[in-house]
């Protein structure tokens, strides 16, 4: 897994590439926790190049969503592959998360 980061209009835009599994999830979680501890509350996750997710990765997403909600922040995901979108549905996540097709759609949500 690779993580890319940039900031735009106060929103943390993070790209997740590759596999978000039990081996790599702690790295993403640590990075997000570091940002959350700095009271960063708005996030866009670019999932276009995320190839795979397991329950460890889903847990990191759910935990991020809960923490941003507590801070009245926003979390938007975009570019989920069809396979990953199906896993979100099975997990019952599609009703918690804001999912967009592309970055423009994700940024619009913050307007």
């Amino acid at each position, binding site marked *: 897994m690779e993580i890319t980061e940039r900031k735009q209009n106060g929103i943390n835009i993070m790209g997740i590439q590759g596999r978000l599994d039990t081996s790599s999830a702690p790295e993403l979680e640590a990075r997000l926790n570091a940002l959350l501890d700095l009271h960063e509350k708005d996030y866009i996750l670019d999932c276009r190049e995320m190839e795979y997710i*397991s329950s460890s990765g889903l847990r990191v997403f759910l935990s991020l969503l*809960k923490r941003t909600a507590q801070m009245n922040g926003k979390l938007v995901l975009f570019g989920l592959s069809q396979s990953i979108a199906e*896993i979100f549905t*099975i997990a019952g996540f599609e009703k*918690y998360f804001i999912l967009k097709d592309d970055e423009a759609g994700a940024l619009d949500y913050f307007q």
Partner: protein
Amino acid sequence: MSKYAITLHNRIEELRRLEEFVNEFVLEKRLPDCNLFELNLVLEEIFTNIVFYAFKDGEAHDILITIEQQDSALCIRVEDDGMPFDPTLREPPPDIDKPLEERDIGGLGIHLVRNLMQEVSYRREGDRNILTLIRKL
């Protein structure tokens, strides 16, 4: 050869070998891509459950995984010599209808496995845990 097998040690680092094993199987059998994702996911969930919960002795153990294609189904068998451990009982199904504030962070692994496989059954044979999973193709 219709039966594929791999022996993994009870360490999370072995996930990489598990992934390679599944990739090779799906490629050789020319199965559609969705099987690659879902088999990887199911086996990761089962394997990590065993690594985290089945052994308390701090020793090295082997986890044996076999996949066999039988007509239009995949039959997966996961075997270990850990303490009696039925993953189908361990986690109550998460309540996926709960509002976000009440939704538990955990409990997802077995829920995903149950939903992606048509059959999941556990039995104890001597000092071994045997989990059998069936996925229709």
